[in-house]
Every structure is written in structure tokens, then in C-alpha cells.
């Protein structure tokens, strides 16, 4: 589905060049659930940003479904994200002025495919059928993250990216959220790449890639 070769992301700083990514080769197949693990500063978030076309690599090639992913062109990168990528954040980042249902509908509107029936089905899928008219501040953190998952898959992305998506949740809620994520992605046939510190989440992945100092240390499938 996606293929990165020799990806480098270097930052010119006053103190010298920081090599956040220093030659990453990564292929992801459709349907995989990839977990990026590594300590702080290992480059996993930078890699996620490059995958999402939020950031442009300094070197290397990046193809998605055989097509080069745009770089250094803000609106083309935005279009790529809109058409291809779903994103779940650590802090949920729901729009506080919109209800649960409206948060999901908003993303459909942006993608130009409004389908309220599907939005409601997704909310049922993540177990929020009773919360659809509530505002984000009126539901729990775990519920908010489930809305974020429903929101991110509402426009049928090919690739769902999660950055420390259980980082703000307790372990029990994290489990629930991850179960919902897996269920939803399997139901929708969405490929997933998640960044985390939490080794315990490996059980929800089909493959674990470990990074350090901008390089891949290991890349192993997960036996479930």
C-alpha cells in the first residue's frame, strides 16, 4: 500500500543538524496494523508526520498506492490527507462547539461526502449510540477518543494514523479504546499505523516496528 525508501528528515538548528529520521525503509501492506515503538526522540512522531504528509522528508522516496506523495506543497499535501488519511490524536481534539454526531459529520463535509446514516452507524460501532447529541465536554475521555476514532474513519480513509492515542487514558479505558479501534478498522478494512510508548498495545497490532535515533531497529510481525 505504501512504500518509503531512504527517508531522511534533517532539521537545521543553531546547534547543528538534527537527524530526526536518517534513512528509513518501510513498506506497509493493506490491512496491516502497524505499531511504531521507541523512546522519546527516536523519530517515531516525525515518521508519522511524514507518512501523513504533514511534514516533507529531506531525502528519500515515498509512494502511496504506487503514486508519489506530495511534499513541500501545502494544499496538495492537505488534499492527500483529506482523501487518504485518518488521524487520531492523543488529546482527542474534538471540536467543543459541535456535538458528537456533528464532529463526525464535519469531517464528512470537509471530504465532500456527507452521509449521516454512516456517521450514526460508526458511532454505534464505537459504542456511542447514546451520546450522539452530547457535547465533547459532557462525555468521558475514553468516549471522546472513541468519537475521534469514529470521526477519523467516517470519510473512509485508506490509512488511519494514531499518535499516542491512549496517552491520556487510564489502562482500562485504553484497552476499551484499542478494542474499538481494532473492531472499527477491521469492519472498515482500514490500514493502521500507531505511535506509542506503551509496549502493552503491541497485542492490538499485526506488526511492530521499533525505532531509535531515526533508524529502524527491528520490524517484526505480531503473533496473535
Amino acid at each position, binding site marked *: 500500500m505504501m512504500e518509503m525508501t531512504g527517508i531522511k528528515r534533517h532539521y537545521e538548528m543553531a546547534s547543528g543538524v538534527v537527524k530526526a529520521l536518517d534513512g528509513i525503509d518501510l513498506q506497509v501492506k493493506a490491512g496491516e496494523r502497524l505499531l511504531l515503538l521507541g523512546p522519546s526522540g527516536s523519530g517515531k512522531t516525525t515518521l508519522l508526520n511524514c507518512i501523513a504528509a504533514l511534514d516533507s522528508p529531506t531525502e528519500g522516496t515515498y509512494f502511496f498506492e504506487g503514486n508519489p506523495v506530495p511534499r513541500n506543497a501545502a494544499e496538495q499535501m492537505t488534499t492527500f490527507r483529506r482523501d487518504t488519511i485518518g488521524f487520531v*490524536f492523543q488529546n482527542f481534539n474534538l471540536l467543543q462547539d459541535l456535538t458528537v454526531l*456533528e464532529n463526525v459529520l*464535519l469531517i464528512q*463535509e470537509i471530504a465532500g461526502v456527507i452521509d449521516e446514516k454512516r456517521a450514526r452507524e460508526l458511532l454505534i460501532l464505537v459504542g456511542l449510540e447514546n451520546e450522539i447529541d452530547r457535547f465533547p465536554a459532557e462525555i468521558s475521555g475514553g468516549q471522546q477518543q472513541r468519537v475521534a476514532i469514529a470521526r477519523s474513519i467516517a470519510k473512509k480513509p485508506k490509512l488511519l494514523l494514531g499518535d499516542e492515542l491512549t496517552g491520556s487514558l487510564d489502562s482500562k479505558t485504553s484497552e476499551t479504546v484499542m478494542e474499538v479501534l481494532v473492531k472499527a478498522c477491521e469492519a472498515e478494512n482500514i490500514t493502521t499505523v500507531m505511535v506509542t510508548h506503551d509496549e502493552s498495545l503491541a497485542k492490538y497490532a499485526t506488526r511492530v516496528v521499533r525505532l531509535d535515533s531515526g533508524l529502524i531497529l527491528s520490524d517484526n510481525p505480531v503473533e496473535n
Partner: protein
Amino acid sequence: MSALLIKRLFRSLWRTKLRLFSVVFMIVIGVFSGISFGSYAITANSLYDVIYADTEEGVNLPDLWVETHSGVWDEANASTLCTNIETSWPDTSLQFKFCEPRLKLDGLTFYQTSSGEEKLVPSVWHGIDEGLVDRVWLPDDECCEGRLASADNEIVLDEHAASGMGFEVGDSISIAAGFGKMDYTIVGIGFHSNHLYFAQEGVLMPADAGTFVTGYMDASGLERLSNYSAGSANLLLIDIEGTPEYDLQSTTAIEGVQLSLISEHIASNISQNNNSAIQVYDRSGVDSVEFLRADAEGAIKSYPYVTGMLGLVAGITIFLSLQRLIQSQAKEIAVLRTLGVRRRSIMPGYVIAPLFIGGVGSLFGVILGYFVGAPAMSEMYEDIIGVPIIETFIPTSLILQNIGIVMVIVFISGIRPAWQAAQMQPLDVFRGQSEIRLSSRTIQRLTAWMPATVSLSVRSSLRKPMRLAFTFFAVGISMLIFGSMILMMGSIDEVVIGGLEERQSWDSQIYISPGGEHEVIQWAEGNDVNYELLLQFPANPKDDSRQIISQGIDEFSTTDNGAMQILVLKEGSTPQISSQTTQVMVDEGTAHFLDWGVGDIQTLEFGSNEVDVEIVGITQGEISRTIYFHRADLVEILDFEATSVLLVLPEGVEIPADLAENTLGIMVKEDIINSFETMMKVQKQFYVAVEGLGTILAVAVLFNTLLMNLAERDTELATLRVLGAPIKSIGLMMLGEHIAIGIIGGILAAIFSIVGTKILIGAMVQWAFFFTVQANWPVFVLIAGVVLGISIALTPFGMWRVWKMNLVDSVKDLSN
């Protein structure tokens, strides 16, 4: 109070430079305007004091004028009257000083324009003999030159006329005063207290160049022109020791009780011993003196409000900015509080910050006001009034007063945010209870049917109702500055130009001495010229020195039926001729100031003659106080037929010179319209500047709110961008939001402007100058449209800001 905490706060403020600059800018404008207007007011006031002073340099303005409107007194008669006044001086603390008989006549100047066209210009001639009081003013300034007239063929021309018509010392001028044309040599160019405000009698607007002349001759010079015997007079100028207080037309209080008593005493004394219809008045009865005083008084009264209003806009903006700053720093404040920093250490910084902003703004405002605004206002005043400003006054007290107003406002605006910061509960902040207030359920229900992007815009806009309300209030004040100019100028234009063009069909008004109408009528009938007699005479309400012009007209018309004057009937009906109690109509200004209404019976004084009148109607559209009689009714009271003749001149017919020579002056309607338009042109820059100022303030207020909204929604917008929302979609959302804010803000601003202007005008109008503001849809739409336009125009900036957003950094924030 920790210096580090204050340093931290100032660094935070510096991070919001754009907002900071917009607030400082508003304060600069507030102080600048206050100093400019204030300096103008004080300078004008001081100038009049210098001109009117009883010194070698001043003109020694009389304290009372006795004027006859029925012919002139001969020398013996005038002298007797003066002696009587002196000998029968009432027993008051005010001491008689001088009584000087004076001749003042209306007339004409025969003027050849640069294109060779012969023009008859209405004029006023003064015969000034002794000059003990009311001398010609020849200031030591480049405006003026020459000397006073001393021979009977010499004249000093008023500077307004000389500069407007290109006359110089040594030139010859042909003039008349009802008894034929004569030539005089101009020996000086100066000013006279009756004509500092250079307008024809009964006309509010300063005369355009070449439409009005005044000249000051030796008494023998005017006697030669008018064919009157030596020592003839129609005015007695009475000077009292010192400068006694006199009744101000702008107040209902009686400021000059003693002077009023003397005035009444003189009026009654003369009417007992002399048959002439006389009028005794103080300085408030001299149009030029009263207009200039009212103008300076209005400026003195209004400049603190101008500063205050602009300061208030700045204060609101500071208040909102500080609130936003505190909200964005809530976590920092909570941490500080948790670490043991006391409330009283948190608060001072947030109080000092606005004072610092106010101080910086005031400093620049003072510099600009002192070196740019005040001199510019003096220059503009010279252009409009045509009187040289000898010295521009910018007293320290004025500067301190303006700074004081601004500092008090900014201090107050900083107190609540500072208190809020100090009262923050760390636990509430950490639990997120001090964060964004959610849109209400009601708003959610009301907007549920909308697409999510639209409802998000609406709800985001209404998320902070208090901020929005304050923003609208500040925009409203800004637009009040903009709108009041448009509304005032529109209303004055409607009253002056609309009144003349649409409701006055005459072309020329010929002033005549009593009985002089026959010659004009004869000529008019012989030349197929439509005419109408007009009888105008000053009157005043019983026991009230304020002057009303009584106007006797032949035809009362409230519709366009060919009458030469159409009256706008506001209330009641037109008078019936020869009623048992004389029926009259009064203008709405008279009704307003005297609290007269339809059905009232009131007593008017024509000199010492008291007349009861019944008010049957109230008219609209007169700037000066006017009372309308059937001319026949007024003739019975005054015992003469007319003071002027209105003429509608057919194409190609002009008033012949030999007829003009024997009149007291000719007023040409077109000249009045031109004068007004010239004045508007001169003042246009000023109006445009004030309108621009209001617009800039509105831009600054809306810009500030937009910046705060954007800053507050950075996370939301970043989320949308990361999720793939194209800049176009976000732009459309912003546009929708700004259109909504623009429409609501625009409507509120228009209402605010109209209501505010009505209140302002209500407080500003005076006896000598009354008009009402007529709100109309085009003005309403214009004001609302400006706000909407500003709001929409700010959208690209918002889009640019989102466009420049660093999404990588944003994602870091979203994931931390």
C-alpha cells in the same frame, strides 16, 4: 510584587504584538483627538477674549446694543437717547461707561468678477466715528494692513471680503446703501466683531468668496453714501465698566440678571420717550458673537467626550485582550498559585500592563496632538472662519486632562481581568473548568439544522457572548464617530440645501427700507417677474432675551403649489388670518427650547410692544428660531409692510443696477447654496478624516476580536487542517462567521450610531442652531455595510494566519 512576574507578563504581551499595537494605536488616537479638539476650543475662546478686550489691541465689544428697525435717529435724537440712558441708569452694581450712536446700513457692492461679469454683492456698511466701543480690528498679522478710514471717501474693507474678491489697499470700490452708487478708496483691510463669523444676517453658513461684503467707514463716509444728515444713527452701543455676565442662549438659566434688568429698563425708557420700534440686546443677540461663542463652547464641552469615547474603545479592547491573555495563561497562573505565589503578587502585573499601554499611547498621542493635530485644527479654523489665529494654545492642563481621562479608563479596564487572574483556583484550571465556555444547548438546537461547518462557525462566534457584546459595543462607538459625521452632514445638507432647493422657489431677495417695496413691485410687474412681500422682524418671548425672527408671509403652503416658500408642517395646521388672537406657526426648535405646543397662547415682545399669539402649528427644517405670521397680521403689529421682496426671475431677466442702488441689499439664493458647498469642500478633509478615524477604530476593534478568536481556536483549526480541511473550506467557514458578525455588528452599529447621534445632537443643539437628525435607510445600510465590509475584509488575514500555521508544531501540541 515580583519583577520577574511582571517581566513575564510583558513578554507575553509582546508575543501578541499586533493586538498590542492596535490597542496602543487607539489610545494614541484618543489622546491625539482630545488634544487637537481641546486646543482648538481653548484657542478659539482665548482668541475671542483677545479680540473683544477693552484694550488698545482689542475692539472693546459693547455690552448692550439698542437698534431701531424703523428708520434712523437724527443726531439730536440719538444724543438725547444716549443722555437719557446715562441719566436714568438703574441702580445696579454695573456702571455705565459709554453710549455711542452708530449708523449701520445694508447695501450693495458693485463688483466685476475676473471673467468681467458685473455682480451686485449684498453688503453691510458701518459708520464708525469715535470708535470708543466696537472698533475695527487690525491685528498685527499678514492678513491685515492699512489704517482706519478718516475721510468721507475712505473705507476699510473686511478681510474676508477683500481676500475673497481680490481687493487691496489703494483700490477703489463702488458701493451703495439705498441712495445711489459711490466710489470709495480702500485704506485698510481688517475685521469687525459683528462679522468675525462672516455670514449674511439670517444665514448660518459663512459666505462664499464674492457673495458678501462688509466695510467700515468714518461716520461721515456712511452719511455721504446714505444721504443721511451728520450724526444720524440707528444703533446705540452701550459699554459698561468691566465685562458683565449676559444671558447665554444655550442655557435656560439667566446668567446676566443685572444686564437683563438694565436691558429691560432701557427698552421701556426709550419706548416711553421715542416712537421708534427698537430692540435692546446683549452679546447673545449678535449672530457673529453668538455663533463663535457657541462653537467654542460646543468644542470645549465635547472634547472630553471625544477623548473619553475613543479611550473607551481602547479600554474595551484592553479589557478583552487582557481577558484573553489571562485565559491563555490560566495554566501558568495556576502553576504559580500552586507553587505558593500569592494573589496580591499575581494582580499588580495585570493592573500595571494597561497603565503602561495607556502611558505609551498617551505619550505618542500628546506628541502627535501637540505638533500635528492642534496646529492643523488652528489652520482649519482659519480656513473656515477666516480669522487669523494669533497663537495656538495647548495648555499643560489640557494635556494632563486628556492623559488623565485615558489613564482612568485603561486602569478601570484592567481591574477586572487582574482580579479574575488573582482569583483563579488552580484546581479548577487543572480540571479544565476555566477553559472554553461551550455554546448553549439553545444555540445548539437553533443551529442543529445547519451543515456542521456553518453551525461550527455560528457556535464559535457565540462562544464568548460577553466578548462579542463588548466588541459590538466598541464597534458601535467607533461607528458612532463615523456615522455621526455622515448623519449630521446629511441632516444639515438636507436642512440647508434641501430647504433652499426644494422648498424655496425664489431666486433673489431684495432688502428694502420701509416703503421701498413699491419701486421693486413696479419693476417686477413691468417685467413679468413673480414677487412676494416678506416682513421680517426680531421678537423675543416675554421676559426672555432670546431672539426669534418673526416672519410675515402672504401664502402658507405645505405642498409644492408654486408658493415661494413651502413650510414643512410637523404638527397642527396653518394660521388663519385676522383671528381674534393672532395665529402663528413656530419652528420645532422654538417649540423645543420654549416648551411651546400647538394650542398654547404665548406673549411675544416686539421691542416694548407685547403681543399675544396662538400657536396653531409647528414647522420643521429651520436652523434659526422662526415664528410665522400672516404678513397682514404682522403689519398690524409693526406698522410697516415689508422688509424684503422675494423674486422669481424669468430666464434672461436681471435686477437692473438703478433698482439695486436704491435697495438695502440683494441676497441671491444660488450664492447661499454655493457658500454652503464651499464650506463643505473646505471641511470635507476634516469630515473624511473623522469618518476615517471611526472606520480605522472599527477595523482595529474587529481585527483585535478576530485575532483573539483565531488564537483561541488555533487547536480547532490545526485539527481541521491536519484532518485534511483545505484552506478554502476553512476560509469559507471564516467568511461565514465574519459575515454573521458583520451583519449583526453592522445592524447594532447602525442602531447605535443613529441613536447615539440623536442623543449627541440633542445635547449639542442651541437656540441659535437647531436641527434634528433624520435617520434614513441609505445611511443605515451604509453604516452596517462598512462594518460588514471590514469584517469580510479581515477574512483573508485569518486565512493567511491559518495558512502559515506550522502543522508539525500543531500536531506536537495536539499530541501532548
